[in-house]
């Protein structure tokens, strides 16, 4: 038998016959088993070739882009930096907006108060004392004894006033005391700072009905604070037969460690 090379006509005829068979058989489905065998055998090879060719193409592409790659990295880094700064700025703006919204709601709910917003610019250098420094003073119309609040409740009162700043004694300071009343029972007492986060309501007689979660407000007695400012909520009540008064712990809704902006009740003139 001669080689295929010596019989090109026969080879062409066989291929043409195959082509014709394919054209005729594929629509009828008779070619499917043969196709399955071919694809089963060739699929792994096809995958390997595709994998290699893709890597080569990417490699060539990378080499081509190598000149511009560093510039692209720098450009993307700049974009990331810009977006990070923008993200931080937006987060700050969101916090500020929330704070301003709360202040606005407080102002709308208390239209009779003349309020002045102030930024907290410093704290007392001692951990045992609870004072803050705000960026408003006599030049802004502030005076000694003016109450300071946030939308969450009473913060304290101004104890020293300078031309452009003021010192505020927080409710938590041990020297702070505010005449208060329980909203539901109208029982009166004095809220004192303890040098820690919570406050103590003293001088409430044993026969007064005080429940946990009762709201504690300023009573306005003694004229140091206006009436009905929220101080906090009753957290615990201790009654004792041998004591004249109840021992009541009050939790303020104000986070005294994270004060950033406060409101000064300018219209209120304390009686000293």
């Amino acid at each position, binding site marked *: 038998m001669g080689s295929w090379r010596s019989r090109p006509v026969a080879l062409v005829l066989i291929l043409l016959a195959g082509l014709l068979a394919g054209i005729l058989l594929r629509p009828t489905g008779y070619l499917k088993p043969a196709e399955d065998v071919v694809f089963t055998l060739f699929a792994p090879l096809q995958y390997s070739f595709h994998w290699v060719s893709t890597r080569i193409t990417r490699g060539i592409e990378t080499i081509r882009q190598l000149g511009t790659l560093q510039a692209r990295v720098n450009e993307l880094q700049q974009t990331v930096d810009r977006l990070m700064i923008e993200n931080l700025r937006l987060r700050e703006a969101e916090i500020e907006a929330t704070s301003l919204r709360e202040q606005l709601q407080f102002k709308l709910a208390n239209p009779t108060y003349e309020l002045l917003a102030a930024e907290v610019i410093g*704290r*007392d*250098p001692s951990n*045992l004392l609870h*004072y803050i*420094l705000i960026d408003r003073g006599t030049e802004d119309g502030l005076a000694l004894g003016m109450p300071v609040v946030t939308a969450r409740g009473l913060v304290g009162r101004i104890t020293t006033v300078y031309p452009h700043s003021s010192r505020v004694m927080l409710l938590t300071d*041990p020297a702070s005391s505010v005449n208060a009343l329980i909203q539901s029972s109208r029982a009166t007492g004095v809220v004192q700072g303890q040098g*820690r986060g919570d406050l103590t309501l003293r001088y409430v007689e044993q026969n007064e009905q005080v429940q946990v979660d009762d709201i504690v407000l300023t009573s306005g007695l003694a004229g140091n604070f206006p009436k009905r400012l929220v101080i906090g909520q009753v957290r615990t009540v201790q009654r004792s037969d041998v004591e004249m008064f109840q021992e009541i712990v009050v939790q303020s809704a104000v986070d005294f*460690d994270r004060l950033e902006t406060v409101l000064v009740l300018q219209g209120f003139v304390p009686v000293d």
Partner: protein
Amino acid sequence: MTEGSAINPYLATASLLVIALLQTSAMPSLSWLGVMPDLMLLVVVSWSLLRGTREGLLWALGGGLFLDLLSGGPFGAATLSLALSSVITGMGEFNVVKDSLWLPLASSLLVTVVYNVAYWGILQATGRSLHTVYTLLRVMGPAIMVNALVMYPTYWAMRWLHQRAS
């Protein structure tokens, strides 16, 4: 410790003023459990360890006055508490191994207790009734921790200043 040549008084005053302002403005952001590091105390103690009791006491008096000006508490409370802390650091200086790596840490622990107890005593004496045990533990416990953490950076910064001044 050997005492070097005295530091320029203007530089010392400016440094103490900056430290006092940092104490009231930047330190609250490093608070842990509501307690901030006593930067001025750590600076005074570091200076006492590096330059001796005399200079340490001078810094305690100068720094204390700035703190008292910025504080709402009784005037002199910070100055006296810092001075006492400085003197006690100076006394301990002769009894511990000099140049020990642990010396700043041990000093910060000791003076945090001394400073807070002294300050608390002055507040009590001036009519501010603090909830004794709770307040001391609530303030002193976290203060010991935060001061220990801030002590080494402070000590290294003061050592740099000490070497520049010598």
